[in-house]
């Protein structure tokens, strides 16, 4: 399928977490991880982080996945996506959400955001353990 119109993903977070998530998606989903780009806040001030997120999101539709809503990463994502109709921000990124993302990038942005928030939440649960 052509890349045209498909949603790209940018993961912005603390330290090595963004690249670690991309690596994890690659190990599970292979080349589908190419839809994701990692942006670390390491050593970056707010302006540089914001411009890196903006550049990674590119011209097409994009979702910026953030580890923490509050703080420098969440702020950079909010600044980079403010007023941009073809960008969205999802906070509290996790691996199940990203795996769902890479296989459903053809969805409309709004529908995809709704889906990913639900799939990310649904993946958080206590495991049943034999006692």
């Amino acid at each position, binding site marked *: 399928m052509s890349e045209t119109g498909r949603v790209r993903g940018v993961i912005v977070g603390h330290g090595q977490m963004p690249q670690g998530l991309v690596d994890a998606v690659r190990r599970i989903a292979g080349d589908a991880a190419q839809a994701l780009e990692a942006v670390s806040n390491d050593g970056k001030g*707010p*302006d540089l982080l914001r411009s890196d997120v903006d550049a990674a999101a590119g011209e097409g539709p994009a979702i910026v996945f953030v580890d923490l809503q509050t*703080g420098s990463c969440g*702020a950079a994502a*909010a600044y980079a996506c403010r007023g941009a109709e073809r960008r969205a921000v999802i906070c509290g990124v996790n691996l199940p959400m990203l795996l769902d993302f890479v296989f459903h990038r053809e969805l409309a942005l709004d529908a995809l955001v709704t889906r990913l928030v639900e799939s990310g939440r649904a993946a958080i649960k206590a495991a049943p353990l034999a006692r």
Partner: protein
Amino acid sequence: MPIVLYRVDERLVHGQVVIGWGSQLHPDRYVVVDDDLSQSQWEQDLYRLGAGGAEVVFSGCTEARGRLAEWRDAPQRTILLTRDVATMSRLAEGGALNGESIVLGGVHPAPGRREALTYVHLTEKEMADLAVIAAAGADVFGGDLPDSQRVDLDHLRRRWNSSN
């Protein structure tokens, strides 16, 4: 209750401040002194998300100088933040921060800045401003988190000088 922390940090209300410092200092209120942010409701709302339930007050620098005594005398435990040295320097004019401790946190690389610490980068003007603040009676030091090693201004300046 005195203001429990004065901090220069470009990221203002963020994890290191709210979780790192906040978990030890238990602030009731953050005062963000910044002329631009004091005029931007959208950005204020964004920063309030990160305050963990504490009150967040945004103030221009001139207003803040007039309210320092009020904040110091109030019962709330307050952390005062600026995102640059210049604003802290203006706040400190006339000895207004005499006897206070000012912590330098996230001041990141930018054109004209040299590294003093991995998390503090300063221009010559900023280094000179810090010297003025210290000469006016404030204790200026580097410290990203409360448990990390305190780096005094003299040491910080030597490292900055050697990073030419």
